[in-house]
């Protein structure tokens, strides 16, 4: 079938782009390496190149790819579930919950760290995201209308954001600076162990969502039709919320509240891929999310920056906001 082939070529194209960008990341930097040097250093390097790659560049590449894929998968699943092209990982209040957890941890002055890059702020983010997720699931078990949940998540985000800003005002300045830096987002603050874990988590989450592909296809036809066609709606809903909550919570814990990747990546894929089935969209979106995150991180690591890097969220907003505006215009023009 023509559509199927296009879909596969498309996924392959995004994967190749992500691979090339990853190679560029590994080779390029203050210490320039050739591809063969990278290859050798990765497998046998005990010297400085090996340490540089294994402790700095490889974790960063894996974190960017894993986080980009995870957020893009969340974005697609939530946009489908809520029948809303502007839904994203931040809409359920999950990112806000993680921010509150980090604010509490950092601004209270807890600073412990482990070798995995897992410290007080990570714990705070995971707990904050988890608490909000439980609250959303509690509401979801009583109110099935997607719009109710969407608005509940948004309002919850506002309340949590308000608490966070009160905490900021009360905080000491060095703690505040750490919190503000975390809020700008970064793929560069994870260890190798955590970055491998994040990639594994994205793969597991992607697999769970891919298993729901047919149910989500039917869900686009409306809740009654989907139910009538035999979609186990409650099970699908809980899976979507649990997977997106865990993925978005974990990414926020390690990389900060990353902007736009989850919201905009599915739209970038839709502009290029005519096949809308979730069987094709999930792999395409995961590969595209990884490629776009790696691409954005090249600008973050830009050599022309005097201060050692632009904020990730600033770079993502430069690219993400126009994409969302373009989508809005396209939708209103095409009816």
């Amino acid at each position: 079938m023509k559509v199927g082939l296009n879909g596969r070529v498309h996924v392959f194209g995004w994967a190749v782009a992500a691979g090339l960008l990853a190679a560029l990341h590994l080779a390029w930097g203050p210490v320039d390496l050739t591809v063969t040097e990278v290859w050798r250093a990765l497998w046998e390097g005990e010297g400085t190149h090996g340490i540089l790659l294994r402790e700095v560049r490889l974790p960063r590449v894996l974190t960017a790819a894993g986080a980009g894929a995870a957020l893009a998968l969340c974005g697609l699943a939530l946009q489908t579930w809520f029948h809303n092209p502007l839904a994203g990982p931040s809409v359920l209040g999950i990112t806000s919950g993680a921010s509150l957890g980090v604010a509490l941890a950092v601004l209270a002055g807890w600073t412990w760290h482990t070798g995995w890059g897992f410290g007080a702020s990570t714990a705070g983010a995971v707990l904050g995201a988890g608490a909000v997720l439980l609250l959303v699931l509690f509401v979801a078990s009583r109110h099935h209308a997607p719009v109710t949940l969407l608005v509940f998540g948004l309002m919850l985000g506002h309340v949590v954001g308000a608490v966070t800003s009160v905490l900021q005002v009360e905080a000491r300045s060095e703690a505040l600076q750490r919190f503000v830096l975390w809020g700008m987002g970064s793929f560069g603050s994870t260890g190798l162990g955590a970055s491998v874990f994040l990639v594994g988590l994205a793969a597991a989450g992607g697999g769970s969502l891919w298993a729901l592909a047919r149910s989500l296809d039917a869900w686009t036809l409306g809740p009654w039709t989907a139910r009538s066609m035999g979609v186990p709606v409650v099970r699908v809903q809980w899976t979507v919320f649990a997977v997106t909550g865990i993925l978005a919570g974990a990414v926020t814990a390690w990389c900060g509240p990353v902007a736009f990747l989850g919201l905009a990546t599915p739209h970038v894929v839709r502009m290029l891929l005519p096949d809308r089935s979730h069987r094709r969209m999930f792999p395409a979106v995961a590969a595209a999310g990884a490629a776009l995150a790696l691409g954005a991180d090249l600008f973050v690591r830009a050599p022309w920056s005097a201060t050692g890097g632009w904020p990730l969220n600033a770079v993502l907003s430069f690219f993400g906001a126009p994409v969302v505006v373009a989508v809005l215009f396209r939708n209103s023009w095409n009816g």
Partner: protein
Amino acid sequence: MTGADWVWDGLQAGYRTPVTPVLNVRWNRPGLHVIVGRNGAGKSTLLRTAAGLQRPSAGQSRIGAHDVHAAHAHERAHLVAFLPSTPPRGVGLTVGQILHLLPGTDVQRHQALASTGAEGWWDVPLSRLSDGETQRVMLARALFQNAAWTVLDEPTAFLDAPARTRLFEVLTAQADRAVLLSTHDFHALVGLPGVVSVSALAREGWICLDPQGSAASWEAACR
């Protein structure tokens, strides 16, 4: 399985407050069954409830030996196929992809599409079609699902006159298919030989009407 006994046992549809009277109805013949009633009488809520898609305020809906509300989702899909009154919008899937979400052969898929005048759009995304065209595809989906009962909520609301006539022809021609539909278009149904029963959902309760009666007599019962 088609035409299996459908029993509404003290069934009452509604949310926190009931919107219909308590109904005790037994459907035991295949063919076309029609429900009429005024706007706001609760026809849509009743049909969704009877089809097992939303919880009843009270009572049970059973097809054969199965309580439709207790059945697993995939099991229920064999018992009832339901068509909502409004067509979905902004669906990027093609017509072929939508019909491929249900089991069956491509020959049967094309037959179902042809029966509702939706042939020739196999590779077209649903979002490119008009509301009426979309509803014809969704009708084909409901018929192709081939459940014991097919429940259509206002299936003609978005259809033009030729499509409406064609739909009623198709439904009345398949005497062994059990269909329950609600409609305001009952003028088009008067005198059709395949109509097995006509009932009115009114404020006072359930009124059985003469399927060969006049449109005026049906209309009077809706008040």
